[in-house]
């Protein structure tokens, strides 16, 4: 006999995953809108943000109701509290995607190809982190969650490379300062999305193992 509570947990997982898929698309389209200078994509991201905000509140309400009515323990308790935290991280990722499209669509065109390549690569890495952290959540995969934590180092290193390239670019042409600032903010937002994916992976590891590895409390 499948308990109603388990059905509720399954539904909650599906809602978080569905929200995650929308956020993944937001990140992808936000970067595409910058690179392709596509205003339609930008509008799509803004539309999705409203959906994500609404879903965030619904998921929180569901979690609070489950805690109040079912008084979950052990793995169920860890799952619901993790879902609440992941929900919050996903919503913040959506905000970062909106921050990205808030910057000039023309910035990319004026900058050297090397910087565009780095931004594209960083975006791919970040999307991979988001996608894998969500897959780890859905499939209860500790190894996959650990892999996301390692990817975060690559993203940080790409951000440093972008900053370096931008500095070199400004040295040669001070007129590019405004566009450069836009790209610094875009790469900073991508890095923050990576940090949120890291948070999700840490929550997934706690959810599965009951071990808190945040702030390097435990060696991976």
């Amino acid at each position, binding site marked *: 006999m499948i*308990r109603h*509570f388990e059905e509720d947990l399954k539904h909650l997982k599906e809602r978080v995953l569905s929200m995650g898929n929308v956020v993944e698309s937001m990140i992808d389209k936000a970067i595409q809108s910058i690179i392709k200078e596509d205003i339609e994509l930008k509008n799509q991201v803004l539309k999705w943000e409203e959906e994500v905000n609404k879903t965030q509140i619904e998921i929180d309400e569901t979690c609070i109701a489950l805690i109040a009515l079912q008084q979950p*323990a*052990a*793995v*169920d*308790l*860890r799952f619901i509290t993790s879902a609440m935290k992941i929900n919050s991280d996903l919503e913040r990722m959506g905000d970062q995607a909106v921050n990205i499209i808030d910057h000039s669509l023309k910035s990319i065109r004026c900058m050297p190809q090397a910087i565009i390549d780095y931004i594209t690569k960083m975006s791919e890495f970040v999307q991979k982190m988001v996608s894998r952290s969500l897959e780890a959540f859905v499939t209860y995969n500790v190894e996959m969650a650990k892999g996301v934590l390692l990817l975060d180092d690559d993203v940080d290193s790409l951000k440093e490379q972008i900053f370096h390239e931008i500095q070199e670019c400004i040295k040669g042409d001070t007129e590019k300062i405004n566009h450069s600032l836009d790209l610094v903010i875009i790469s900073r937002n991508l890095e923050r999305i990576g940090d949120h994916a890291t948070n999700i992976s840490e929550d997934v590891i706690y959810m599965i*193992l009951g*071990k808190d590895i945040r702030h390097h409390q435990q060696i991976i």
Partner: protein
Amino acid sequence: MVVKIQVNNLNCWFKNTQVIKSLFLSILEHEILGIIGPANSGKTTFLRCLNRLNDLNPHFKSKGEILKDGRNINTIKLETLRQEIGMVFAMPISLPMSIYDNITYGAKQHGIKNKKELSGIVEESLVKASLWDEVKGRLDQPALQLSGGQQQRLCIARTLAVQPEVILFDEPCSGLDPISTAKVEETMINLKDKYTIVLVTNNVKQAARVSSRIAFFLMGELVEIDTANDIFVKPSDRRTEDYITGRFG
């Protein structure tokens, strides 16, 4: 941490059925040890071993040892053992006499006759059992007129009146409403500072609310013992997890 009761390799049988298997367990001074587990897991049998109540059953036999303060309980005079290790049962059993006489009954059996001393014991016991404010003006009234929750706290007070060191609670709130349950739980938590408490309960949420540590019994075996927090957030054994999340079976 001081070990109040040490159980070493306890095995128990009713006729030919073994109900407790190779149990090793320490009960620490001033803790509330919650014991949870499904039916027929040996919880109540274990509790009744601690003050030798099972000895009344002719089909009961046991092996192993239980030490209280390092002394084998079989070497302690039965009357002394049951004064030192009191018990509160699931059904509140008030004696058909006044509230005052219910409390003083045990003390009188232990030879206390002085009225002033007895009155002091009554007040002190009722205060500790969180019942004094509700009954102080009607101590001469029949105990049976009290509500179920008040009668249970009266039983706690009666247990306290003989100055025990350990109190065993066997499903103390099974017949009580949520308000009375909360009062008994608060009483148990307050008593922890001066007494060692062992609580057998089928209400796992109650075990979580009041226990310092929790032991999970299954089919006569101790599966896991840990802090209440660890048992309810990250239990080590899958069987414990299945039980407290309601997936058991």
